[in-house]
């Protein structure tokens, strides 16, 4: 299950969806909003997604994880909207018979999600500036990232 959520995430409820008698391990990853990036103080983040394609690409990543690793279940949920420092932005959970596959698959899912899923992040800095992450361009940097 890969979902984009406009509502706050509930890790305990999500983890219960992975419960399975075949599973002897469960590895979870939580991505939190932190108060700095590249040396700049960050006050808040806006996340935005192209939800239909994000969920389709996310399901593809989970299918790849099931092919590559001996896992039982895999779930990833990504928040969208305005988030504050400390908020949970993304949750990944993987269950498997043994811990090795669960650790490896969890890492794979979060890495591929960050690289491939159409989700965007706008940082709001303490000095009032904002920037869409990874979207700066040489030459017109200031015009591109200020709003």
């Amino acid at each position, binding site marked *: 299950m890969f979902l984009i959520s406009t509502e706050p995430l509930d890790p305990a409820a999500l983890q219960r969806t992975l419960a399975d008698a075949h599973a002897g391990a469960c590895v979870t990853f939580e*991505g939190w909003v932190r108060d700095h990036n590249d040396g700049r103080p960050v006050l808040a983040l806006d*996340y*935005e*997604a*192209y939800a*239909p*394609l994000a969920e*389709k*690409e996310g399901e593809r990543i989970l299918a790849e994880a099931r092919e590559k690793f001996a896992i039982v279940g895999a779930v990833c949920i*990504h928040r969208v909207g305005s988030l504050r420092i400390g908020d949970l*932005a*993304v949750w990944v959970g993987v269950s498997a018979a043994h811990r090795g596959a669960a650790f490896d698959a969890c890492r794979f899912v*979060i890495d591929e*999600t*960050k*690289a*491939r*899923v*159409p*989700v*965007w*992040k*706008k940082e709001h800095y303490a000095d009032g500036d904002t920037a*869409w*992450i*990874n*979207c700066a*361009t040489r030459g*017109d940097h200031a*015009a*591109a*990232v200020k*709003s």
Partner: protein
Amino acid sequence: MITVHIQYFAILREQRGVAGETLSTPAGTAAALYDELRTRHGFSLPRDRVRAAVDESFVAWDTPLRDGQTVVFIPPVAGG
């Protein structure tokens, strides 16, 4: 000319000033459409930093566009 629906996200939405539009275009491919819109609206991202999606699937830039399709240009992603 074909008519296509365009949805904008993130930096492209801000630079275009709207979340979506329907327009007639002579563009035969997603690449030609992005180039047309970039020239018209001054998008900062060059095409090689962007991906194209048609009707909710990623496509190659040279994929022919057909009347009535929904096109989304995907700026560099930053989830997590």
